[in-house]
């Protein structure tokens, strides 16, 4: 693969699209409502796993299983939110990360339910490779056929997915943007700014936090579904806490509380993440590919720290807004 390969960048674009949806959920929770949810990856996992389990084990049609997956992720959001959303911000952060780790441990250790550490390939039991996305591949194939008449040979699987995932991402983006501009969104922002003031003005802070958490969970589940569709099989390791931190990086990179900054952040993140594969000059050429993966994560960490220190408003945010905090 070369740096100019369309196929490679189509793949980067797919990942950026999935991360856009994931980070959009975090934008609702953290950017607009001020909830420090550090368990976001768990909602993504719940979405992906619910879908895969329903398709493989109970033979549900894919669309029904996908809707159920979103509903189950939202139910997890309620389950997590009901006891914890009254806690202070720092305690909420710690509880959500603990919740995400519990989800991941269950996914690793309950092999009968999830396929265990090897992932969904083992969902159907030993000796049989399970697959949940045949229906998706059929659908994607039919879209690809139509695209071929326009794009010719460039209409590959990844290009098709790129278009599909970004259509969904942009629709969700428009919906979220419309929602936060309403009086409802105004209440969310007031909670982020000062929840006591919001309560003194008659707003049921807890109910709104719960809504924000649940909606964010639904968005994470949708991201999880596309992740599952794209990669055909997945394992608990795909929902490492790092995934949540990546979503934070995207939100902060673009600009907190700015929806249109999310796809920008996701694309820049995708380029940083994928682009470091092309560090084939010294001293990076001395490193093996595994070691370059560490360099990539170090770069992400430095980007986070650098943003907080020097550009807390992100690429698209306004400086004057940050000094008001």
């Amino acid at each position: 693969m070369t740096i100019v390969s369309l196929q490679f960048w189509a793949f980067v674009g797919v990942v950026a699209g999935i991360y856009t949806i994931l980070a959009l959920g975090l934008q609702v929770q953290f950017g607009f409502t001020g909830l420090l949810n550090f368990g976001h990856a768990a909602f993504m996992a719940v979405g992906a796993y619910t879908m895969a389990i329903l398709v493989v084990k109970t033979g549900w049609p894919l669309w029904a299983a996908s809707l159920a997956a979103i509903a189950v992720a939202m139910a997890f959001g309620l389950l997590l939110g009901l006891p914890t959303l009254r806690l202070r911000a720092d305690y909420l952060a710690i509880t959500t990360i603990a919740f995400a780790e519990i989800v991941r441990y269950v996914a690793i250790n309950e092999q009968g339910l999830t396929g265990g550490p090897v992932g969904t390939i083992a969902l159907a039991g030993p000796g049989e490779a399970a697959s949940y996305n045949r229906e998706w591949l059929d659908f994607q194939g039919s879209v690809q056929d139509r695209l071929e008449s326009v794009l010719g040979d460039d209409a590959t699987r990844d290009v098709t997915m790129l278009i599909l995932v970004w259509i969904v991402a942009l629709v969700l983006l428009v919906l979220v943007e419309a929602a936060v501009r309403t009086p409802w969104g105004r209440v969310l922002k007031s909670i982020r700014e000062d929840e006591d003031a919001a309560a003194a003005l008659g707003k049921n802070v807890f109910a709104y936090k719960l809504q924000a958490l649940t909606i964010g969970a639904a968005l994470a589940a949708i991201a999880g579904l596309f992740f599952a569709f794209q990669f055909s099989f997945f394992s608990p390791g795909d929902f490492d806490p790092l995934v949540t931190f990546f979503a934070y990086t995207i939100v902060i990179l673009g600009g907190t509380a700015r929806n249109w900054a999310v796809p920008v952040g996701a694309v820049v993140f995708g380029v940083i993440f994928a682009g470091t594969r092309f560090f084939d000059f010294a001293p990076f050429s001395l490193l093996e590919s595994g070691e370059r993966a560490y360099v990539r994560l170090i770069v992400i960490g430095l980007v986070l720290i650098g943003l907080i220190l020097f550009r807390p408003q992100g690429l698209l945010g306004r400086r004057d807004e940050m000094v008001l905090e």
Partner: protein
Amino acid sequence: MSLLHVYDVVKRFGGLAAVDGAHLEVEERSITALIGPNGAGKTTLFNLISGFVRPDRGSVRLGEVRIDARPPHAVNRCGLVRTFQTPRALTRMSVLENVLLAAPDQSGERLWRLVASPRAVRRREREVEDEARELLRLVRLESHAHDYAGTLSGGERKLLEFARALMTAPRIVLLDEPMAGVNPTLALQLLDHMRTLREERGLTFLLIDHDLEAVMSVSDRVVVMNEGRVIAAGTPDEVRADPLVVDAYLGTHGRAAD
């Protein structure tokens, strides 16, 4: 007739009783001042009345409704609004948005209503905006309507909170040091507005302030707290003459507090 009844309210933090059996009545359509030395329990009493802190004992009623077991937002919906000693401007929202937020009965604060009846939401939003701009004119902040509230000075934030409180269409307004940091001319106007609002809308005010002269001049009644209890209540003249009050507060700390 009294609108707010506080009966035998006690609140302890650790071993310390911040409020220790306070009784208080606030007449409907009155302006009542709550005064007392620092640490007397005035702000804690506000927190107890507005639902931010639950009393260990005693009751708080607004009209016929008991409000002491309700959370703050529910207390507000009963018609009681409070401001804070350190103003709580929502800094990364515009001044106008701060006031709009406070509007009651905005069905657009519910997601499903936004989908089901967007027109009703827009219509209400227009009404609310007119009202909000009116209130901003009242406190002389209309030129800042589209600035971030975080750019306002301390005194301006107090005024914003005052406007925001009125926006909730309350029956009673609890003001915690509303004039602190506000320029003196504007502070006097604020007191005038309180009197006008009482006449025109039948509002009731309960306020804490350290500017005793101003407070005495505007209030119908004065309630004095010391060490968690109400030690005196009456007209400004009666309270001035009360030896207990002079002893606890006016004689020793009164001037120094200004």
